[in-house]
């Protein structure tokens, strides 16, 4: 029996009960659309997060205080202060090949006030190198300079979100005064918007000279982190080692296992984050796959009903010479047609829906061919898996019992 004949017969059989066929198809449509939409949103989210991390500077090595290994014996540093402003200054003047900029940072969340308004934001003490290390643009005014650190000057560079909160959208506050911890700071610049939202909002920030933050605001000698920017990505791995050994030597530690700091590159962060978002995407797709499974069961249900209804027809077909495989092929084809039609509509709906949704949430629209291929593959497999049992039941009917069936 040639395929065209099987296909024609299957199509005719499916068109007999249009409502029933449509409902069975609808189950698959919803399942596939859900998988595609959620995968697309997940991948879009992943892309958005990755882009934000990359915008922090892809040549960046971050040094953080703390032991490199957990449970290892810490080196006797003699002090709780693991990383200092002096470490950063030493790195800056060490003339290690490949270093573009160095900045130590110390950040706390605190309240800023200007006139009658106030906002809670992240106040970060930085060195001038921060601007290069983190690709920070200045929209108006200037960034913090070496002189500001030397003089522990009370100057501040505001992020656009803070400007909006304190002075209103689009205002230019350069020259104005804001109060941090009840001390007056002169606004010397406004940074360029970097985007991001929630805890990733890179615009809700205020920069002050590192020395001012340590001595005048937070009363500490330590720094939260040191950023080292390489002149290009190719130097990152090499620099990571050199900076590491430089700091070990400075801290008088011989065995790297005892290091009192750890280092991460943007690549590490990116890897960790994309692992998390990847897991999240898989979870979403998994949930959507449940609706696909339910759709598949719907197909199976319809096919079982169809086989029962057409018992006499099956008997007649067998009486005129249909072999088991002819009957199996016939009903399997019907199930696969249902799922492929459902899958195709589902893909259209899913792509359309994810496009629409990305216009309302700050996630880029990602059209991934792989999720479409996956959906097509999954829907055909569902057709075969869930169509097989009813098709087999039909093929195994005894012709005479089938003919007698009322």
């Amino acid at each position: 029996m040639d395929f065209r004949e099987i296909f024609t017969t299957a199509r005719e059989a499916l068109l007999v009960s249009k409502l029933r066929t449509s409902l069975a198809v609808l189950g698959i449509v919803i399942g596939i659309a859900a998988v595609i939409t959620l995968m697309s949103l997940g991948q879009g989210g992943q892309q958005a997060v990755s882009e934000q991390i990359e915008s922090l500077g892809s040549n960046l090595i971050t040094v953080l205080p703390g032991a490199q290994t957990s449970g290892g014996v810490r080196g006797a540093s003699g002090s709780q202060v693991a990383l200092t402003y002096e470490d950063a200054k030493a790195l800056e003047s060490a003339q290690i090949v490949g270093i573009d900029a160095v900045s130590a940072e110390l950040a706390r969340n605190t309240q800023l006030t200007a006139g009658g308004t106030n906002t809670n934001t992240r106040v970060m003490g930085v060195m001038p190198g921060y601007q290069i290390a983190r690709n920070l643009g200045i929209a108006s005014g200037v960034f913090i300079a070496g002189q500001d650190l030397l003089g522990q000057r009370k100057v501040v560079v505001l992020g656009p979100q803070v400007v909006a909160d304190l002075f209103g959208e689009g205002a230019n506050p350069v020259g104005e005064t804001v109060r941090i911890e009840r001390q007056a700071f002169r606004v010397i610049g406004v940074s360029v918007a970097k985007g991001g939202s929630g805890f990733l909002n890179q615009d809700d920030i205020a920069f002050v000279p590192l020395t001012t933050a340590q001595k005048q605001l937070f009363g500490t000698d330590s720094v939260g982190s040191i950023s080292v920017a390489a002149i290009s990505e190719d130097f990152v791995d090499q620099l990571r080692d050199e900076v590491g050994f430089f700091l070990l030597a400075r801290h008088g530690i011989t065995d790297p296992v005892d290091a009192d700091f750890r280092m991460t590159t943007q690549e590490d962060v990116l890897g960790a984050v994309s692992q998390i978002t990847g897991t999240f995407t898989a979870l979403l797709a998994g949930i959507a796959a449940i609706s696909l499974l339910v759709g598949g069961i719907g197909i199976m249900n319809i096919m079982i009903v169809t086989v029962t209804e057409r018992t006499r027809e099956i008997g007649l077909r067998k009486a005129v010479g249909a072999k088991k495989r002819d009957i199996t092929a016939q009903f399997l084809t019907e199930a696969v047609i249902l799922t492929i039609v459902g899958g195709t509509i589902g893909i259209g709906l899913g792509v359309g829906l994810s496009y629409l949704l990305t216009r309302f949430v700050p996630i880029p629209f990602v059209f991934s061919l792989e999720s479409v291929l996956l959906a097509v593959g999954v829907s055909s497999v569902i057709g075969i898996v869930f169509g097989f049992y009813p098709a087999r039941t039909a093929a195994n009917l005894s012709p005479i019992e089938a003919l007698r069936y009322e």
Partner: protein
Amino acid sequence: MIALKDITKIYKNEHVEMKALDGVSFRIKEGEFVAIMGPSGSGKSTLMHIIGVLDTPTSGEYRLDGRKVGQLTDDDLAEIRNKKIGFVFQSFNLLRRTSAIKNVMLPMVYAGVNQKKRMDLAKKLLSQVDLADKTDSLPSQLSGGEQQRVAIARALSMKPTIILADEPTGNLDTKSGAEIMDIFQSLNKKGNTIIIITHERYIAEHAKRIILLRDGKIVEDNMNHRQKDVNRKKAN
């Protein structure tokens, strides 16, 4: 070509055991026209299903063209039903939503005959049963007699040597019934082996040999010397 030896068929359900056939033996040679008669419940339909390899006997041996049917696979049996035997049923058993010509083509579809060939042959067969103008009609648009003629055309499509008809006139009026019997007789004249199941004597009278069945046993197996010839009667 058909040889049945000591065929029994027992139907069981959880309460009762029913012997539908009880030691039936006979032979049918090529070119015969046999009527199997008997009251309802005599086992004649079961016998026909076994001859038509739609069903298997509980015990006994059935040889078709020398091959032991009991040893054949499902696919072999499907092939026999496709090529050697043409079935005609009391209730016609046409596919409801399928045109007359497509119904006729169905056995050829399973035999893998190509589209053009089966279309040509189906048209020829339908014109042989005087339905040349009804090729695209659905069964519901045809009268009972016409539906049965479509079924006969379908039975003939693979040029089988044996035609098995189970009460072919049972659902038809006398005139249509006579027309159907007319067709069977002319097929027999062309050399087809015809086996008809009926419980009506005047239908059986068309056959050359009448086997009478009662309670699953053969009680009579006679040549019918008074064969009614529909063609001759018509000529008069």
